[in-house]
């Protein structure tokens, strides 16, 4: 088999796409282009019957579009099969439709509990974060919670959260019932180093696959708690040539997905470049 040239953002998109099945309803939140590119890839390959519930535009939509910083809203509204109010999305579509959704935690612990509210002490934070949106709600009841971390490191994979704004796996059935939590916890996590589930002992995070050129030791060293390892742990399947082509040429030619994998100045420069390109395209 011919080896395909691909980048880690393309691999993450492909892993996300492979978690989506034809006919699914998928939701995406704000500023999650890796997830959006992954969903679009699924739509263009094995899941043509995918429906999108979008926080931008507040619609359910059945089409696909190349990613854009400025015109996605017009796409979601122009191709909407349903307009919803945000209260309808929250009180009806999410609890009853139970879409699949990928959340990006600022911190995640060994059991998939997450934090998107503060770094540091809640009353005297080191950094206030944008907020948890609907994560504190959906993670209590949804059977279809997925996580992704574009830059795997000890700042994100922590032994103890600074604040718990998302529920992970509570393996003890009595404890879970006592709390009133009905969600089984997150099903899956993909990072730029590997893929994981929560089937370790007591619901611990478990390494399923490591990405190309990444060792298990490296992943463990970048994780702030001991990982369980799946017995059949192996290298993550690479994207196909067609998946890479779709991402690069049709779904995200501007490389908006990279705004999640890049950091610091590189991210800033990429953002400027994308904006300039979108202005030229207008």
């Amino acid at each position, binding site marked *: 088999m011919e080896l395909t040239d691909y980048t880690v953002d393309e691999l993450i998109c492909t892993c996300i796409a492979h978690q989506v099945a034809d006919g699914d309803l998928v939701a995406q939140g704000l500023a999650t282009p890796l997830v959006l590119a992954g969903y679009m890839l699924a739509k263009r390959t094995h899941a043509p019957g995918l429906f999108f519930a979008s926080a931008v535009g507040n619609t359910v939509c059945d089409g696909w579009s190349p990613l854009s910083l400025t015109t996605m809203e017009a796409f979601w509204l122009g191709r*909407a099969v349903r307009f919803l109010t945000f209260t309808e999305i929250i009180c009806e579509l999410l609890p009853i439709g139970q879409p699949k959704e990928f959340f990006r935690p600022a911190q995640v612990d060994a059991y998939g509990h997450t934090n998107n509210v503060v770094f540091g002490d809640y009353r005297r934070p080191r*950094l206030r974060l944008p*907020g948890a949106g609907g994560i504190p*709600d959906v993670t*209590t009841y949804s059977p279809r919670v997925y996580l992704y971390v574009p830059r795997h490191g000890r700042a994100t994979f922590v032994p103890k959260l600074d604040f718990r*704004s998302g529920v992970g796996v509570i393996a003890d059935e009595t404890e879970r019932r006592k709390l009133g939590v009905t969600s089984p916890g997150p099903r899956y996590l993909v990072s730029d180093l590997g893929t994981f589930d929560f089937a370790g002992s007591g619901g611990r995070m478990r390494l399923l696959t490591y990405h190309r050129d990444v060792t298990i030791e490296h992943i463990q060293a970048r994780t702030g708690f001991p990982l369980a390892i799946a017995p059949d742990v192996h290298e993550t399947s690479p994207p196909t040539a067609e998946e890479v082509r779709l991402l690069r040429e049709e779904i995200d030619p501007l490389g908006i997905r990279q705004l999640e994998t890049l950091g610091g100045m590189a991210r800033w420069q990429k*953002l400027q470049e994308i904006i300039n390109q979108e202005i030229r395209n207008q």
Partner: protein
Amino acid sequence: MPAAAALVRPGDTLALGGMTLYRRPMAFVRELLRQGTGDLTLLAMTAGLEGDLLVGAGRVRRLRTCYFGLEVFGLAPMFTQLASQGQIEIIEETEASLAWGLRAALAGLGFLPGPGWLGTDLPAVRPDVKLVQDPYSGQRYMAYPALRPDVAVIHVPVADRQGNAALIGNLGIDREIALLAGRTIVTAERLVDSPADFGYQADIGYMSVSAVVEAPGGAAPTSCYPYYPLDAAAIMEYVQACQRGEFQQYLEEVVKRQTSSVKRQVSNVKRGT
């Protein structure tokens, strides 16, 4: 616009329509900044540029939102700075507490039970939100308290002079806050004889609207579908000004401006048959 902005009083809970960087009442916010109205409680499902200007200018004492940021353009700089320094009171909210709180108020109830929060640290930082037990199944729920804004401000593409206003999608929580607020102000890209002439139905009815203001370009640099998309370059200019520590200069400049220039139309609003 000045008369409409004067309907906002110090101490009010102010709900701003639109979502994040979409259809935000920017022209109204600039007028409010000119008038200097402060001590506000800002209520939004998601807050973005409009909120960051008000927060940075020191006009917001208290915040109720579940997301405050500029999406891929980054953190909302002034919110992040002032909230991290503890200079702003945050009433921790999530999608559920805001949505069920609005629905409770619409139903004329003091609260509604809803899913969420259980097993998280939210109840610990919101001791005012109580737990209730379903008398039938025994299941526990949060009892989200009713939310009633004093003033709602909603920028819309099309409205008539009585205040019947069409949102043309991106509904957010605009219908709810328009119904619930004691005073509702609509600013519109276009004032028309009737939205029906344009093939649209009103999402907001005249009986809940206190003032209507024509404000072409009134959402820029956020978007106003179908008239114009968000102006990414202008949002970057704001982020960069804040990075240089020049929020005050930016604020002074922006407050002077009557309306933002609108760079491009997505499409024209079509006249119905």
